[in-house]
């Protein structure tokens, strides 16, 4: 979205002055309203769609597959997304997928995916980002959060649960009960990670930045939030033109801002009653 020099100077002065004045008058921590729906796709274990005010939209489907594993304790999760308009495996797509994949792998206890000693679930998280004006990272992460909340994994068939753990292995491929109602939710005891992005303009930090705000930003910072703590931090390029530079002390300010923002988002997303 090429901005003219006059627009750029207007926006950068507005955003870097103290107190800053965003083009739509929002506070530094204020989010634009989102439209969210969960459990919308019949062929998935869990699904969600989130749409932003500026037309940005993301659909995520979570599918689980049964795989035989040798090492019992590692977590098999694959995150992949298709950003429409960009070539496959573009740098932006790699950022989104790798950030979320490592976040989920580090936080998901492997016992949740265990079926029998020999068999595990492998979780595929696939997202399509239909349109994005602002940076798609937060959009993709919120939709994945909601889709994981909605994910249900089928339980073993009742007759094969009779024996204790180890003799279940002799029965070969595990049989599952076909009654979808008695499947249990993945996120009963675990809440998924949430990745949030903030942009830094001068000394100010802004959350949920619009496309034009990102165009005048000096840099971006993402935090991975899990179980009430910030567990990951990373500097992100938010403008594809010149190199971005920002002062070190705005990082601590940004982390605080992102922590409180993540707490609110997690609360709001949890209230959405997943079907």
């Amino acid at each position, binding site marked *: 979205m090429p901005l003219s020099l006059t627009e750029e100077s207007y926006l950068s002065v507005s955003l870097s002055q103290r107190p800053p004045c965003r083009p739509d008058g929002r506070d530094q921590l204020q989010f634009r309203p989102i439209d969210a729906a969960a459990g919308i*796709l*019949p062929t998935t274990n869990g699904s969600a769609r989130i749409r932003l005010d500026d037309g940005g*939209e993301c*659909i995520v489907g979570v599918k689980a597959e049964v795989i035989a594993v040798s090492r019992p304790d590692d977590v098999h999760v694959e995150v992949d997304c298709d950003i429409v308009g960009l070539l496959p495996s573009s740098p932006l797509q790699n950022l989104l997928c790798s950030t979320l994949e490592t976040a989920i792998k580090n936080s998901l206890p492997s016992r949740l995916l265990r079926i029998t000693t020999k068999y595990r679930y492998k979780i595929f998280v696939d997202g399509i980002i239909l349109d994005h004006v602002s940076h798609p990272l937060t959009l993709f992460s919120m939709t994945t959060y909601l889709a994981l909340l909605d994910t249900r994994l089928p339980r073993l068939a009742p007759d094969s649960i009779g024996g204790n753990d180890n003799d279940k292995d002799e029965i070969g491929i595990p049989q599952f009960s076909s009654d979808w109602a008695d499947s249990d939710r993945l996120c009963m005891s675990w809440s998924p990670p949430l990745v949030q992005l903030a942009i830094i303009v001068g000394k100010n930090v802004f959350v949920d930045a619009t496309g034009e705000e990102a165009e005048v930003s000096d840099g971006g910072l993402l935090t991975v939030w899990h179980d009430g703590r910030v567990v990951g931090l990373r500097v992100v390029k938010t403008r594809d033109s010149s190199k971005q530079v920002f002062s070190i002390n705005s990082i601590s300010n940004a982390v605080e801002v992102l922590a409180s923002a993540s707490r609110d988002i997690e609360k709001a997303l949890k209230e959405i009653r997943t079907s």
Partner: protein
Amino acid sequence: MASRIEIYSPEGLRIDGRRWNEVRHFRCAINTHPVSSDGSSVIEQGNTKVICNVIGPAEPTLRSRVISDRVSISVKLVVAPFSMIERRKRPQNDSRIQEMCSSIQHMFEDAVIAHLFPRSQIDVNLYIVAQDGGVLQACINATTLALIDAGVPMYDYVCACTAGMLDREVLLDLNRIEESAMPFLTMATIGGTRKVSLLQLEMTVQFDRLEPMMAAAMSGCHHIRDLMDSEVRKHGKSRLERGSF
């Protein structure tokens, strides 16, 4: 392969309980993504769900896309890995997807009154989020609705439907299980007329069974046209009442 009885019971009931000439649960909406596209639609036919965004007619982005006497249409199809029962990530140049794109593109190059917009381009983006048979027909119907929503002049709706033949029984609008169990054809007609824009048959069938299949598919197309037409009218009325221009 599902046994014959299970596909079509002697009492004339199919797996999902429909009779031979019933269309699956058809639901559509237009103007679903007004901010991110000029025209948009969502279609649900049974469990097949397709989203379509149309951008244009607009200034061509690539010089190679400019056609001097008419609009150039390009179709892009994204199949979600989670759309089928087993998760499958399709390679970018999957030949089946490319074939579908080129059929849809040719169809709408003729259905749109193309000579009104020389040297401009229309981009059609289709997203298949759930597949349960009749994917090509859902894409065609979704594209028609999205083009109408974008205000692109067209001669008539282009509506599509499938019909299959199990031994001597004609079945209309097949789902995935039925599609894999019998030869079927996909037909697209120009609105309520008897003009066929697209006809695709992929499995061998006796010649004298072709006529009833085509007749059933055609009546399916006309029925789907009425369903789409009523949705467009309903949407138009509600916009007129709401907006105070």
